[in-house]
């Protein structure tokens, strides 16, 4: 049944791609206000996957329930990171320094995790880990479906925040013109800190979601950062909505790539697509052109 197989591949791609999508939305927000790619995003995702793992194994807290702790904690951590590390670099508008700071942070986090959790892969195992639905012969694991659900919910939450709240509008405004926002009386540090809080908060959500689906180890953070970056580029850097679509598209590309070309090639294919997009359509596949102020 080739059709069913293809469908299964597609569904899996979408289900997994949403995790990339949430990560990319976080990257996109931080990029919008700070103009830097926050390389450590992937590493933080893995970090929160470990936190979720700890909460389960040490305290017996269900991963999905742990979101109640992880989301506020990660948002707090995000704003603390901004004020502690990135504030001066943001004020000096020195992008290279911010970039290297992010690299340093990623390096630090990854090695921290190696020490605390060793390089051996861990996975979160619960009673529902092996639960599977089979509508029309398509195999859909329960955890992936939940991930999709959480991703959609989170993305909707972020979009509503950006669209409906005043501070959300300010974040979008700052990603267009920071000076102009300060002339409205908006404190740029506040906006950046909010972007960081949401960015790392999304890493928290993505981390928990990832932990329920896949075994993970510390080095996976770097790969995930690249994946999120690819998703971002596909969607258009700075385009928050595009980032989510870009993530789903990347999930599809990987899923189709590993099915039709062979497992292991998926990384190379998605990277190839990424390069082509960067070179020929730097504004991304969705939406209009990048407007230069």
């Amino acid at each position: 049944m080739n059709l069913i197989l293809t469908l299964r591949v597609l569904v899996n791609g979408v289900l997994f791609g949403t995790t990339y999508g949430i990560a990319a939305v976080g990257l996109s927000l931080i990029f919008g206000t700070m103009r830097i790619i926050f390389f450590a995003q992937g590493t933080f995702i893995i970090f929160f996957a470990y936190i979720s793992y700890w909460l389960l194994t040490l305290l017996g807290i269900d991963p999905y329930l742990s979101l109640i702790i992880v989301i506020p904690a990660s948002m707090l951590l995000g704003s603390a990171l901004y004020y502690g590390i990135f504030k001066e670099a943001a004020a000096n508008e020195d992008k290279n320094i911010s970039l290297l700071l992010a690299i340093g942070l990623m390096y630090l986090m990854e090695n921290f995790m190696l020490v605390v959790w060793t390089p051996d892969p861990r996975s979160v195992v619960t009673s529902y880990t092996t639960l599977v639905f089979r509508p029309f012969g398509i195999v859909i694991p329960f955890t992936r479906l939940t991930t999709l659900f959480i991703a959609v919910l989170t993305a909707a939450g972020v979009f509503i925040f950006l669209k409906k709240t005043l501070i959300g509008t300010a974040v979008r405004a700052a990603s267009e013109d920071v000076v102009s926002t300060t002339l409205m009386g908006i404190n740029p540090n506040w906006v950046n800190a909010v972007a960081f809080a949401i960015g790392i908060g999304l890493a928290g959500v993505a981390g928990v979601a990832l932990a329920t689906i896949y075994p993970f180890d510390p080095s996976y953070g770097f790969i995930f950062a690249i994946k999120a970056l690819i998703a971002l580029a596909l969607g258009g850097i700075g385009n928050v909505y595009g980032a989510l679509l870009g993530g789903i598209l990347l999930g599809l590309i990987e899923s189709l790539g590993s099915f039709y070309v062979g497992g292991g090639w998926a990384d190379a294919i998605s990277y190839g697509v990424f390069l082509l997009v960067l070179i020929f359509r730097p504004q991304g596949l969705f939406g209009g052109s990048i407007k230069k102020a």
Partner: protein
Amino acid sequence: MANQLLEVKSVDVFYGDVQALWEVSIQVEEGTIVALVGANGAGKTTLLKTISGINSAARGEILFSGEHLENLKPQNVVDRGIMHVPEGRRLFANLTVLENLRLGAYVPRARPFFAESLERSFTLFPVLQTRKNQKAGSLSGGEQQMLAIARALMGRPKLLMLDEPSLGLSPIFVKTIFELISTLNEQKATILLVEQNINQALKIAHQAYVLKTGKIVMSGAGNELLADEEIRKAYIGERVGRRQR
């Protein structure tokens, strides 16, 4: 002298090693229009940016209702009641008209009056009401300038600073903008206006200062300066405007 809303006293400003303003002093009386005129590069925009806290003054004082502004960040200056409409408008092009206006009323001082201010803006600029859900970037140049001014008014400014509001607009819109500035003033707004359109600016200004290479070279009532032949020299040089040589 009556109520001085803004007093700039002997301000020096540098860009790196280069001095851009030399002992500049101006006063803005409450309820008046004050114009800053002068050639490009004379330091008009620099002065506005210094008042609004984007640039910092190396020396001198800036007093607003008697309060020092020199070391405040731009967001805190806005908090005190100064709204600055920068050159080139700098709207948030991908945000809607309404969202732009909402951000104009961001400061806590103005936020509670949002609905009231919005109504006033829509009365002043009916066209903005019809386009309120359109992206700011899709407006025409003149409409964008209106939105920029409306956005600043949302902040309920005690002082409104306009940097080249007529720049890049077609002559018809230039006229509209100047009429608007007069109207605002009749409604008791205090306005500090930077303009290259010298005739129009001086015509509506109560008081004017002429800047040349970072220094105030002349000042006086708008209509006095308008009649003064010297100002043309200060502005675009000796030979322009003379009938015959």
